[in-house]
């Protein structure tokens, strides 16, 4: 159960497949931990778009959590 998603409508498309991205749950490996995150994904090849808000926002928050304790 999730109340938060990084998947939002985007103008980005998959260049290889020329298809619009769709929201999907993906496994993210980060600092030796695996997380399930909802992101925009190419339904053809599985390409994942990592938005800036995730890369410099929540990732940083989680990084501090993982490193401090």
């Amino acid at each position: 159960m999730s109340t938060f998603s990084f998947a939002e409508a985007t103008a980005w498309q998959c260049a290889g497949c020329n298809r619009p991205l769709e929201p999907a749950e993906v496994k993210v490996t980060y600092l030796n931990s695996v997380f399930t995150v909802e992101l925009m994904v190419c339904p053809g090849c599985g390409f994942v778009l990592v938005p800036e808000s995730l890369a410099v926002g929540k990732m940083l928050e989680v990084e501090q959590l993982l490193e401090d304790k």
Partner: protein
Amino acid sequence: MNALCRRLDAPPITLYEQDELGALTGGALRPGGLGLTRELLRFCDFAPGAVVLDVGCGPGHTLELLATEFGLRPAGLDPSAAMLAKAAQQAPTAALHQGLATAIPCRDGAFAGIVSECVLSLTGDIEASLAEMHRVLRPGGRLILTDIYCRQPQWQPDLPRLQSCLSHAQPLEAITAAVNRAGFALVLLRDRSDLLKQLAGQIIFSFGSLERFWGLFLDADAARRTSCALAAAPLGYYALIAAKEPHHG
């Protein structure tokens, strides 16, 4: 059975009866989920058909695992009627008992194994709970324990309106000493604090922040204070296996 929230001005909120936490851990309501349970059960290598009691069985996911993946005969104990109703659906072959870890309603030596995950710190009396687990375990039987522990003996969390395993965490040395005093011999001890961090990280990814997660169960101010208190909490997570020594009856 995992964590209890209690508001002073409202009926108690039982966190482990909420769906949000279970959904993050595959229904298992604790760091590591069933993956850690599998690891520990494989280590114990119980004989097929052995009777294993889950103390604090919650909604019964470990009971189902015991029966379907390990060929064991599961029994479950939980104080919550709501959780036992879920367990009856999740693991129809399990024998279920409503009661407390400090007064297990089963005969001496009834079980070849006991599993108790993220429960011991919530029982209110670790010594009494371990004594009861020792009593109902047969000589040579194995006890699997996982739970929160505290890295600093003097740590007193400021957790408003919240009674949970997080605020009852004890130092690991105190826990292992109590296990030994109860008559168990420690077979395996692993620090699995990585799983606690993993769960906290998953909460951030799934709910946006830890504060938003606590806001599902607490008012806004209490959620903020709880998040702040836990951000600096010196908490870890352990997994241990202990054996009831054969000469104890």
